[in-house]
């Protein structure tokens, strides 16, 4: 309850259904923030990919581990965090899916899409272990695209 305005924190079980729920709630919050359809799609997809990874690689499909999705409408951007209870990882260790030798791989594009679709993207160690994705999208500029925060 510091400076931010809307803050949505969603604690999810490690289930495939959690992916859709996380995406839907994100799209709804992005709508409230004034993002247009195309931007909502990109933000929603980024959360989807982040939660799928938290499910698969972080929590390794162990249902009782939690995934915490946090959406914060700060004054100038929507900041999204996806925290898991897994081993953590470093972006530097992830192969570039655009490299010639990876182009025909059937996986490895999730983090790339999140980076492409959001304005800011980082992977940090979680406060109590696990990986925490932090991504942000600035509010659309111009009339009609104002964010609800002051």
């Amino acid at each position, binding site marked *: 309850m510091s400076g931010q305005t809307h803050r949505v924190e969603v604690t999810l079980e490690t289930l495939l259904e959690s*992916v859709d729920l996380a995406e839907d709630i994100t799209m709804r919050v992005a709508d409230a923030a004034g993002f247009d359809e195309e931007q909502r799609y990109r933000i929603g997809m980024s959360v*989807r990919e982040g939660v799928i990874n938290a499910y698969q690689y972080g929590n390794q499909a162990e249902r009782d581990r939690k995934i915490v999705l946090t959406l914060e409408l700060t004054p100038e951007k929507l900041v999204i965090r996806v925290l898991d209870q897994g081993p953590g990882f470093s972006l530097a260790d992830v192969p570039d899916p655009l490299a010639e030798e990876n*182009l*025909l*791989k059937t*996986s490895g594009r999730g983090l790339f*899409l999140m980076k492409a679709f959001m304005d800011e993207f980082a992977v940090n160690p979680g406060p109590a272990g696990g990986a925490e994705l932090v991504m942000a999208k600035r509010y659309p500029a111009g009339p009609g695209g104002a964010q609800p925060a002051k």
Partner: protein
Amino acid sequence: MSFKATARDIGDATVMDLSGRITLGEGSAMLREMIKELVGKGRKHIVLNLGDVTYIDSSGIGELVSGFQTVRTSGGQLKLLHLTKKVHDLLQITKLFTVFDVYSDESVALASFTS
């Protein structure tokens, strides 16, 4: 909105009309199985009609690549037809647009097969 697929044989070729979402939870596994089945039946010329596909995530992109490889390994060819703007953009930024043969007209796609 959920994934649907139907296959139409046109001469030597099979057109798969896909619709809905191709994502980890929904169409991905189903698409993979259907392509495997077609290849198993000896179909070598496959067109994926993506005109009604509303959403593809990274897992769906992976299945398109996987299908492409499966068909190619069996000596066939897989072509894509009718990309929506969203799917077009996804293939563009992942540099897969140049890997796939992409068409906006079904008869042109069908005529493009070389056997």
